[in-house]
C-alpha cells in the first residue's frame, strides 16, 4: 500500500515538477519573474479537483472512452504550447528578447494543464484511499512520494540554473523537445486505448533491457515518454513530434536570419 501510493504520487509529481523546474529555470534565464507560477499552480490545482470530481461524467463521454480522449486532448494542447514556447525560446537565443506577455501566458497554460492532468490521478487516488481503512499508510506514502518528486524538481532547477545562459537554454530546449514528444507519445497511446487510432502489433519489445516498471524505466518515461512496446504509429508520431518544432525553428531562422543559427549549435 505504502509503496504503491508512493509510486502513484511520485510519478505524477515528478512529471509535473520536471516540466515546471525546466520552465522556471528558463524563465529565470530569460529574465522573467516567476510570479506566473502561482497562478498556474492555482489554476492547475482547481482544474485537477474539478476534473477529479467530474471524472464519472467525463468517463461516459464518447462511449466510455471520454477519459482517454480528454487526457489525450490535454496532452496535445500541452504539446502545442510547448512547441510555441520552444520557438519563442529559440528566437531568444537569436536576438535575446522575449515576448514577455505571450511567454508568460504560454507557461501559465502549460503548467496549469500539466498540473490538471497529473493532479487528477492524485485527487482520485486520495478520495479512493480515504474511503478504505488503510488511509494512514496511503497518506504517509503520498507525502513521501510528493516530497521526493518536489525535491527532485528543486535539484533539477538548481542544476539547470547553475549552467551558463546559452548552455542552460540549449539543454532546456532539448529537454522540452523530448518532454513534448513524450506528451505526443502518451496522447497517441491514450487514443489507441480508446480505439480512436488504429491498434497495431508492437514494433519491438525492449522490456528485457529497460522494464517500464524499473526506476530507470519510470524516469525515462517521465523524461522521454519511454515505452517498452511501442507500435509503429507511436514511434512515427514521436519522431514527427520532434521534427515539427525543429523544422519550424529552421523556417523561422531562414525567414528571419540572425547571426546565431540554432541548427548549427
Amino acid at each position: 500500500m505504502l509503496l504503491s501510493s508512493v509510486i502513484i504520487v511520485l510519478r505524477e509529481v515528478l512529471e509535473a515538477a520536471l516540466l515546471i523546474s525546466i520552465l522556471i529555470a528558463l524563465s529565470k534565464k530569460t529574465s522573467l519573474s516567476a510570479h506566473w507560477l502561482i497562478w498556474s499552480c492555482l489554476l492547475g490545482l482547481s482544474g485537477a479537483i474539478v476534473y477529479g470530481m467530474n471524472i464519472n461524467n467525463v468517463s461516459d463521454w464518447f462511449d466510455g472512452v471520454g477519459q482517454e480522449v480528454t487526457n489525450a486532448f490535454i496532452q496535445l494542447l500541452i504539446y502545442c504550447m510547448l512547441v510555441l514556447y520552444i520557438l519563442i525560446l529559440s528566437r531568444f537565443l537569436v536576438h535575446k528578447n522575449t515576448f514577455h506577455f505571450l511567454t508568460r501566458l504560454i507557461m501559465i497554460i502549460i503548467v496549469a494543464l500539466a498540473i490538471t492532468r497529473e493532479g487528477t490521478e492524485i485527487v482520485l487516488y486520495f478520495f479512493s484511499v480515504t474511503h478504505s481503512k488503510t488511509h494512514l499508510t496511503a497518506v504517509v506514502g503520498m507525502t513521501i512520494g510528493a516530497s521526493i518528486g518536489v525535491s527532485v524538481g528543486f535539484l533539477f532547477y538548481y542544476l539547470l540554473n547553475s549552467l551558463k545562459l546559452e548552455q542552460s537554454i540549449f539543454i532546456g530546449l532539448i529537454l522540452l523537445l523530448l518532454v513534448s514528444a513524450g506528451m505526443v507519445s502518451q496522447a497517441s497511446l491514450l487514443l489507441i486505448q480508446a480505439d480512436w487510432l488504429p491498434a497495431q502489433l508492437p514494433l519491438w519489445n525492449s522490456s528485457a533491457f529497460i522494464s517500464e516498471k524499473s526506476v530507470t524505466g519510470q524516469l525515462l518515461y517521465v523524461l522521454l515518454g519511454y515505452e517498452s512496446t511501442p507500435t509503429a504509429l507511436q514511434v512515427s508520431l514521436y519522431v514527427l513530434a520532434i521534427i515539427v518544432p525543429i523544422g519550424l525553428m529552421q523556417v523561422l531562422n531562414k525567414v528571419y536570419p540572425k547571426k546565431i543559427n540554432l541548427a548549427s549549435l
Partner: protein
Amino acid sequence: MKSIRFFLSIVILSTITIMAFLAALNGYNDSMASAEELFDTELVDKANLLAISYSVRPPETRISDIAKFDQIKESQQSEQYFAFQIWKNEKILLTSINAPQDAIAHFESGFHYKNFLNHRWRTYSQYNKKTNIWILTAERIDIRYVLAENIVLETIIPVVIMLPFLGLLIWTIITYGLSPLRNLAQELGDKRADDLTALSIENQPVELIQVVNSTNDLFERLKASFLREKRFSSDAAHELRTPISAIKIHLHNLSHLISEDEQSFIQLRSSVDRMGHLIEQILNLNRTSTEQYMSRFSTIDLYSLAQEVIASEYKHFAQKNLQISLEGDSNTINGDKFSLELLVQNLISNACKYTPESGEVLIKVYCNVGDIIFQIEDSGSGIPVDKYERLFDRFYRLDGDCHTSNTIGCGLGLAIVKQIVELHHAEIFLGQSSFKTGLMVRVVFSKEDLS
C-alpha cells in the same frame, strides 16, 4: 534574486529528503519481504502441522467431526484469516469452516495466489506422496499485509514527521551560519555616506577576512582621494577668491581713470563678475555635496523662505521690469536652511535671467496629497524637451557657449539644485509653464521623508 540561504536550505533539504525517503522505502521493502517470508514459513508450518495431525487421526474420520474440531481449534480472527483443506484423490477430506467446497489452491506444490470468497489469498500446496494427500493452506493477503505494514510503518512515520523539523533546523543553522555575512552587509549598509572608517576585522570568519581587508583598503584610498579633492577645490576656490577681490578693487579704481564706456573695460568687468560667480558656485557645490553634508536638518517654511529670497533678488526683477508673484501658503519641510535657500535662489535667479523684459514669473508653494511642492514658472523662451536631461549636467549651458541671453552664468546652477534636491530625497521635474512659452520647474518633497 539569488539567495545563498534559500539555495543552501532548499538544496540540502531536498537532498536529505530524497536520501532519507529512499532509504526508508528501501527499508520498508526489505522489512515487508522479511515479513512475507515469515508469513510464508508460518503457512508451511501450519501445513506440516496439519499433515502430522491428520496422519495421527484415522483416515475414516468424517467431515462433521472435523468441523467440530475446527470450531474448537480456530479462533474467531484466524478463522477469517486462515483456511485449509486436505484432499485425497480429488476428494475433499477435511476443510476449515471458512473454506469453500472447491480447492482453495492449485494442486501444484509450492506457493501461489488465488482469489476465492471475495478475497485474495496466499496459498501453499503440499503433496504427501506416501499417503497421496494434498494439504492446502491459505492466508488472506489483505489482512496479512496490513499486519505486516502496521509494524513496518512504525519505523517510517518518524522519518516523515521529522522532516519538517529538519527543514526548520537546516534553515536556522544556515541563517546562523550566514550571520557574519549579514552583519557585514548590515554594517556596510548602515554606514553614512561620509563615514569611511575601517571595518573591524575582529570576530570575522576566515572566509570574510579578505573581503573586509579589501573593503578597508578601498575605504582608505577613497578617503585619501576625497580629502585631496575636497582640499583642492575648496583651497583653489578660496585662493582664487582673494585675487578676484583684488582685481575687483583694481577694476573699481581703474574706472575712475578711464572712461566707463570703453568696450574692453565693460567686457573685463563682466568677465571678472562671471569668474567671481563661478568661484562662488564651485564653493556652493562643495558645501552641499553629500560627502560634505553634515549639518542637522531643521523645520523650514518654504513659503517664507521664498519670500525672503524674492525680496533679496527683487532688484534684478525690477531692472528687467519683470512681474513676479508668489502664490500658496505656509508649508514646512524638514531640511537644511542654507542649501534650501541656495536652491530657491538658484531657481529664482535662473527664471529672472532667462525671462525677457516685461515677462512674468510665477512661484507656487503648495501641498499635494501630503507632498510639499515648490514650483516656479516663467514666460521665457522655454527649453526643448530633449534637452531636459542634460540640463542638470555640470557646466552644461543651453546652445553651448553661444548663449542667446547675455547673462552671467557658469552652467552650475541646476547641478547645484539637483544636488540639493537629492540631499533632501526630493524629486525635480521640468515641464512647460502655464504661460504661452517658458519653463516650469517643480520640486517635490515627498511625504515619507518629511516625517
